């Protein structure tokens, strides 16, 4: 196999990964624009956009591997960070949506002695000496949390 064929194969691999990543990016953003409800809109970018960024980052790794001859680790850092934070972000957004769209009695039971923690009264004027929770009937023992 000659070197021209190898260079052509490497370029084709990088170009195909860039195209696949861009396709997934635009699918995720289009789903964010066009899907009807917020839960469906939540699923489109959190899956497709991370796939798209993953494809583009792998393309970048392969490109710098082919041009410079060594593997750069920055892309792996970005990939790891995005893949770690995408589920956390989706979870927080879904929880905020539940909190804003439904009243407290409509939400499913938690199956624990305490209810949904986000409906607890806000510690508006906490005493720095006695912790963040205000004193009074809201204070619950620590073993039930």
């Amino acid at each position, binding site marked *: 196999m000659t070197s021209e064929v190898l260079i052509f194969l490497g370029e084709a691999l990088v170009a195909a990964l860039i195209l696949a990543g*861009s396709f997934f*990016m635009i699918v*995720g953003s289009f789903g964010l624009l066009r899907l009807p409800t917020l839960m469906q809109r939540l699923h489109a970018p959190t899956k497709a956009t991370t796939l798209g960024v993953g494809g583009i980052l792998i393309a970048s790794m392969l490109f710098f591997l082919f041009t410079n001859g060594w593997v750069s680790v920055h892309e792996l850092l970005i990939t790891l960070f995005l893949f770690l934070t995408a589920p956390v972000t989706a979870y927080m957004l879904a929880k905020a949506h539940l909190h804003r769209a439904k009243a407290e009695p409509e939400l499913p039971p938690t199956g624990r002695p305490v209810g949904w923690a986000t409906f607890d009264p806000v510690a508006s004027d906490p005493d720095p000496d006695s912790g963040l929770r205000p004193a009074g009937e809201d204070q619950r023992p620590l073993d039930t949390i």
Partner: protein
Amino acid sequence: MIAVALWIGFAAVGLGTIFCLIRLWLGPDAVDRALALDTLVVNAVALIMLLGIAQATAIHFEAALLIAMLGFVGTVAFCKFMLRGDVIE
């Protein structure tokens, strides 16, 4: 071949950014706008990576990593504010 793929990639990710901006403008709820901002950040990271490939330099990775971190922290702070009315209690 890579140059053509890069142009198509720039066009696609830019169009995705415009879609996110339209959702940010329309978004019936604040959660929609937070989600649109989060997707906008991911699109920006992809654009910076494509720019790094196009210029064949490795100096854009730190910027991409910083933007990804700021986007995550910002989205979580927005969600905490919508949940509790306060970011750090």
